[in-house]
């Protein structure tokens, strides 16, 4: 599904090297987790994959189902099936949540040569999906993320994911700012999509989220590289002993 090979990335403005050769392959239907200390490059990886400005790829590459994603515009990546659940979802005053979702869905469909969804069908579909994430009609009516609590913003990200049905989902610290109940809701949303053969890359600091979204593979990232890869147990090891032991071991 997603194949990252030797990816090297600099910060454009500071000429600072952030990713120093990342290798990672996420297969369809699998959940890969990336853990790692602050500043290891986890969020940079998610931004580079989704096409945010300000980064320069200096080596390596990334493909989604064989297509070079780094060559695409952000909207083309989305239409190709890539989705980033933001660590800090952006508030957009004046743009209604429903308008936003419908514009996004239909733009993606159009880009893929599919028929646009009618307003009625769309409304029905969104209401259904919103219900399972406990997102009420009022939240759907409000401007995108404006006045949403931290938990509401993250649930809104998962709703977008459920509506857009991407092939490959990157979750950037989706657990930050969530209480236990909200985390369960988010995890349920993710698990529902996982069953349909989608790939997941879950970036997190804590084992907690991985109790609810069981990963197939866990990677430890440090200083711009994947330094260790293992099964779900690796996450438990981090939880119990911190990163220091692992980093010492690979150093």
């Amino acid at each position: 599904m997603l194949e990252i090979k030797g990816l090297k990335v600099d910060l454009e403005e500071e000429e600072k090297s952030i990713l120093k050769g990342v290798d990672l392959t996420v297969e369809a239907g699998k959940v890969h987790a990336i853990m790692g200390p602050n500043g290891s490059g986890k969020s940079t990886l998610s931004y580079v994959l989704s096409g945010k400005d300000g980064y320069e790829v200096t080596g390596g590459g990334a493909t989604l189902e064989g297509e070079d994603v780094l060559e695409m515009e952000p909207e083309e990546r989305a239409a190709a099936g890539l989705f980033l659940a933001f660590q800090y979802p952006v508030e957009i005053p004046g743009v209604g949540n429903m308008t936003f979702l419908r514009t996004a869905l239909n733009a993606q469909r159009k880009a893929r040569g599919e028929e646009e969804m009618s307003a009625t069908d769309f409304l029905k579909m969104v209401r259904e999906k919103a219900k399972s994430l406990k997102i009420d009609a009022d939240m759907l009516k409000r401007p995108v993320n404006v006045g949403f609590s931290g938990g509401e913003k993250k649930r809104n990200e998962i709703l977008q994911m459920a509506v857009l049905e991407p092939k490959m989902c990157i979750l950037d610290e989706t657990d930050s700012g969530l209480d236990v109940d909200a985390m369960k809701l988010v995890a349920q949303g993710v698990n529902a999509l996982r069953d349909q053969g989608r790939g997941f890359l879950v970036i997190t600091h804590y084992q907690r989220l991985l109790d609810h979204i069981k990963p197939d593979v866990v990677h430890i990232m440090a200083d711009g590289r994947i330094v260790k890869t293992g099964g779900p147990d690796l996450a438990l090891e981090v939880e119990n002993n911190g990163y220091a032991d692992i980093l010492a071991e690979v150093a």
Partner: protein
Amino acid sequence: MALDDRRHSLTEERLSSMTVPDVGCTAEARQAALARLRSMGLPQGRDEYWKFTKPDTLVQPDAPKAALFVDDEAPLFDNVDRLKIVFVDGVYSPELSDPFELEGVQVDRLEDVCCTDDHWAEDLYGVLEARGQTPVARPLAALNTAYAGDGVTIRVTGQPSKPINLIYTHKSETSDVFLHHVVRVESGAEATILETGPAAARFNKCMEIEIADGGALHHIRAQGRDHERRAVTHMFARLGEESTFKSFTLTANGVLTRNECVVELTGDNAVAHVAGACVGDGDFHHDDTVFITHDAVNCESRQVFKKVLRNGATGVFQGKILVQPGAQKTDGYQISQSLLLDGDSEFLAKPELEIYADDVACSHGSTSGAIDEEALFYLRARGVPNAIATDLLTLAFLAEAVEEIESEALRDDINTRLEAWLERRRG
């Protein structure tokens, strides 16, 4: 004070080619306006309120030519049941207009306002304009009062079932048009007046509005898409106790537009909202000059102006709130913002507050900025193409001004039109 030579000759040069029309019984008011104008002289670029907008093409004797614009869109408010009053290049067209029959409203053509009938508008024509000349001179409005050849008087006595739409069509490339309307909303009455269309190559319009105690007037205007047209418009509104005046203007295109709005809140608890949204591209200069005077207790005023500018377009905002002594509990709000879509465009803002009462809340703000990159990336990351995402954010930026329109149906119409314009521009 005598005018300097240049201003004097400029003024006389303009007036020499014009004749004061004999329209209805406004002769006295016209002579008074002419005298006012001669004492002020026509505006020049060095005048305090004309520093940001060059008055030359509005002042020169002949109107610069403006190519006709082929508008293939359905007319704005086409689906709204309304009383249509049509002017073609500034001349009322009975054929294209609806009969002046609407319960709760008395409409007359300016030329039918006759002294012998003791017409109500006699006491207003030129009166509010004259009041609005201090403390800031508005010579082009006096010019209008003196020379306006046509217009209507609208007296609202009840709650008319539909809006009155003044429709201004532009058929001649050189038309130089003056229109003058007088509106009086009687106590407890309420109406909506719509104005649509470009009107002329050069359009000078003046509207005097008196709202009696408890009356309400909603005014929604769209200035037409003709690229080369010029317009200078004045609204002079005087509000009585518990009365409401809400005005919204949409502008796209036009090489030069100067919209002045002068509001006097003279009765306690009156409310005045003046808003504008404009979308300018290229050779486009748009100026909102607003002066709101609070002269009564517990009145509210809002000024909300939003401008989207690109390809070298210029936006100007000069907005003032004057709170007179004794106008306690004044609630005044003013915001003017521009969204600059590139580095070539320019926004010039001059917010002013002048307060002579001590128990008031007045706030003002002015900002100029580009598209929010974070928001743009968020939209694109969800699959919304760059151009559509930019338009969505542009509409979002304009929303605060458009939301000043109370009627949902009319607001939707304006929004739909804005969306279509943006979409068309994307090609």
